[in-house]
């Protein structure tokens, strides 16, 4: 080992490197949310402290939220924390699509379509899904739900609604 390297002082830790990426992103996100909330409630009258209007509490909370976010961001430079985890696309995408599909179809044509729809589309979210098995399961579980929610619990969930033709 060459002499000059053993005795050389260790270089100072690189400044301005984010030690806690999760906290950093979290803090930024919160600050963004706080800013959004402040913007969204800009036209709501705030009143005074002694007689708060509808806008006072939301704005006060938004400010506090922003400050907390800022504290998180600041802390992310000072203290070590967890690194950012990877985001996957497939899972959230298909689950969300499935649920949206349910929302769009539940009123009409009704549960007989919405149920299998969310099951099959949601099923695409997992690489382990076996589609033929899932298709049978979709029918079975929809039938079970129809029986349970409509006939046992008497909840007015639309089963089959085709405007002008059929309403169950």
């Amino acid at each position, binding site marked *: 080992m060459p002499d000059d390297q053993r005795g050389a002082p260790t270089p100072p830790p690189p400044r301005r490197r984010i030690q806690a990426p999760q906290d950093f992103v979290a803090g930024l996100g919160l600050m963004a949310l706080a800013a959004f909330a402040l913007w969204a409630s800009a036209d709501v009258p705030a009143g005074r402290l002694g007689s708060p209007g509808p806008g006072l509490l939301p704005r006060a909370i938004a400010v506090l939220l922003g400050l907390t976010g800022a504290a998180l961001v600041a802390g992310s430079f000072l203290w070590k924390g967890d690194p950012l985890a990877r985001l996957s696309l497939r899972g959230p995408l298909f689950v969300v699509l499935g649920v949206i599909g349910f929302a769009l179809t539940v009123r009409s044509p009704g549960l007989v379509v919405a149920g299998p729809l969310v099951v099959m589309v949601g099923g695409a979210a997992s690489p382990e899904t076996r589609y033929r098995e899932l298709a049978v399961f979709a029918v079975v579980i929809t039938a079970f739900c129809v029986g349970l929610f409509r006939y046992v619990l008497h909840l*007015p969930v639309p089963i089959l609604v085709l*405007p*002008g*033709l*059929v*309403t169950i």
Partner: protein
Amino acid sequence: MKTSLAVFAAVALSLPVESPRAAYPERPITLVVPFAAGGPTDIVARIVSEHMSRTLGQQIVIENVAGAGGTTGITRASQATPDGYTIMMGHMGTHGAAPAVYPTLKYDPVKDFAPVGLAAGTPILIVARKTFPAKDLREFVAYVRANATKLNEAHAGVGSVSFTTCTLLNSLLSAKPTRVVYRGTGPALNDLVAGQVDYMCDQIVNLVPQIQAGTIKAYAVAIPQRSAALPDVPTTKEAGLPDFQVSAWNAIFAPKKTPPEIVAKLNDALVRALDDENTRKRLLDLGADIADRPGRSPQALQKLVESEVARWNRVLKAAGATTR
């Protein structure tokens, strides 16, 4: 090819196609109640619809769609298919005060509905905490006029019956008390009993047991005759404030283009329900006020809606009590 066409035709023709006029009703009817279950409008709706179901031969299913002073439910029901299978229970708030209270209201109580008939009204009472320094309505009026700024009046939110009716009362008394808002009549009543607030205007249904037990004081009932449920409480006419006449009426409406034959059938079922001994007894026990025969027609209801919209528009705009 021909066989499949024939099969298709046979299947299509045998599907339960809806023929609205033929034999109404052929399946259960949905009655939308735009308030949470358990409240006065909901109770009236349930009592009345139970009998109506028997006359019509089909079940009337109550669907509670609460929100925004009842306007959410009414908005949704007013946009339903006008085939007689979706009707709604509106009231003084949703079909009277709403246009004045909600500038962005998505329906017009006068134009967007086919009125079926008035069901039952719940008279309004002026009540106060039991330690309120007034023996009767005259003393109450005098006290409120003199001390309005020191008083706290409870109500259940902008657009609620307790809010609109007390707006009228306050304007008659030229009083500007501090108006304290609660999420519903229950919490408001609770604080009145506890003495945290001073007075309130509310529907009789909620108040009868408290008055009978003496936890709150009732000064007057705002209808022409005394209520059978509270025979000791004078009317506003008797007690010196005849201008304060309010009843939170409840009525059944159908969406705009519902065929007149269906409306007539519904009205007939409603009238029979209101004539039935048992139904009458249950409504009267609550303190509700059943419309008399001439007042039960769809035309009478339409007139009532028009006059109420005009009246509340005047009262609320004058008091400056509208949103935004």
